[in-house]
């Protein structure tokens, strides 16, 4: 399951100043895969992937440390009314989320998405968006 973590780094005691991911791994033994991280001087946003069974525990621990957690279920969403099945997104995506089926219809493997947003900008038909 993919979780999107957001936290503040403004104050010295904010969660963003602490090694939150390392602590989760150390304390729970759950292996966390960091798929994307965007951290600047005031805030951080990290996308992690963890086994579904451990999601509740990880979420609870993170929230106790002051990290906001959002479950990313669909990742990138395809608007089928707008999509013309051109495939412009296919080679843009670093995660190989997009492919064609036997009928040259665009297929989306949303579970692989790391929310980088490259496909959203590249789609000539504005058919892709992020959930929420």
């Amino acid at each position, binding site marked *: 399951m993919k979780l999107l973590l957001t936290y503040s780094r403004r104050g010295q005691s904010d969660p963003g100043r602490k090694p939150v991911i390392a602590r989760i791994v150390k304390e729970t033994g759950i292996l966390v895969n960091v798929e994307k991280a965007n951290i600047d001087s005031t805030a951080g946003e990290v996308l992690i992937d963890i086994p579904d069974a451990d999601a509740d525990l990880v979420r609870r621990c993170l929230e106790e440390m002051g990290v906001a957690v959002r479950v990313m279920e669909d990742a990138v969403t395809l608007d089928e009314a707008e999509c*013309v*099945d*051109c*495939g*412009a*997104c*296919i*080679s*843009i995506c670093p995660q190989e989320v997009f*492919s064609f089926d036997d*009928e*040259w*219809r665009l297929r989306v493997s949303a579970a692989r998405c790391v929310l980088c947003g*490259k496909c959203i*900008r*590249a*789609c*000539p*038909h*504005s058919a892709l968006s992020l959930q929420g």
Partner: protein
Amino acid sequence: MEKSLDLINARIRDGSARVVTAEEMPAIVDALGEEGALEEVDVVTTGTFGAMCSSGAFFNFGHADPPIRMERVWLNDVEAYAGIAAVDAYLGATQEADTQDRVYGGAHVLEELVAGGTVELRATSHGTDCYPRRSITTDLLLEDMNQAIMLNPRNSYQRYNAATNTTDRTLSTYMGTLLPRCGNVSYSGAGTLSPLANDPNFRVIGSGVPIFLAGAEGMVVGEGTQHSSGGGFGTLMVTGDMKRMRQEFLRAAVMPGYGVTIYVGVGVPIPVLDTGIVRSTAVRDEDILTDVIDYGTPRRDRPSMAKVSYADLRSGSIDIGGEAVRTSSLSSYRRAREVARELKTWVEQGKMELTLPVRRLDPAKRAKPMRETAITPRVRDIMNRQVISIAEDEEIRAAAKRLLRGETNHLPVLAGDGTLVGIITTYDVSKAVVTDGRLRQVKDIMTRQVIKTTPDEPVDIAARKLEQNNISALPVVDATNRVVGILSAIDLGKLFGGRRRR
């Protein structure tokens, strides 16, 4: 054996014509041989669905009361060309509105009309004795117009160059988003289904031939603009009644960072008259070759990185210099297939009979580049030839002195053999002094990835390099990487003083 068009049309009328799509034809020819396929198949239908910028429509809005001679016309704030009769206008697909907060253009207006939506017409005039009115605003549906005639000056390219990008930054082009360092390849065209790939000698596709255009029955007008059949890049000018078109085959699009375009579905039915036509309609993706062009070269003549077939492109990745690069199509093969299949149904059901060209298209024409009478300014015309440079093993102090004395902010750094190896700026020197006193030599602080230009480069391209990299000077090097000048943002100002306007 040959087959006459009359025979084929008689079969279409009585419902006995055998119609196949261009995708099905190669296997039929394999199984039956050319003579057998000629006997078996009467019509091959083709199709393509992709971005076709050179598209648009003529409208006649009818006369208002009091009447107006429209001089400028906007449809949903997108300007249409009104330099024709009083209430006629031509709306081009790529024209963009200047008052919308999103990218919106002629293509969106065309799609909106075909989808049955309302479009706001706004027009102005200076007023005449016969047309006194000076302005008008009204809402129109497609059905309110007397005519809405799509006329696309250039559609249905025979084949198209594929695109890649060898530079270090992402490019936004009419071939879509091109990732840096050959990160991807984009291509366009339906390969085996492409209308002109199935008649490369223009034997049966020509003026007057009926076609599928965006869901309506249309017609080939003649050769398209920039028709270059001699090099394998033939094009068609096509027309059709917009009132009969369908949105699924006419879709507005925005190439990110480039602009508005429109996706159009075009299909041409090909009568199978002889074995020559059998052979040309048996074309496979493997047989249609194209070049992968480096769009990182901002010039008209761009280098080819590889020669590939449409089969290679459609496999999902191709080889460029020993590395597998993923491919993306900009046109939709699925919709191209739908075009060819729907056209097949039309012919099978007797809705469309075929015609031979009333005038054939030139199969050997070549498009020319533009004749330019004004000389394009080159870097050598405005660069500063008095270059102050420094050797890479000199002390930073020496660099600081030279910058001060030369009243410049940029010092090209040279190796022992005189070639360019780096550049330093006053900022680099100041930073070195403040941050780390141990740095001694120029080579410790210089930028090694130098963005540079050549004397021959057009000034427009050099100016774009300055702008995109947010820098203020470019060393000018010759073929041996020796510095022959420096071009600064200030030098660009020389152009504005002269006759050249921008």
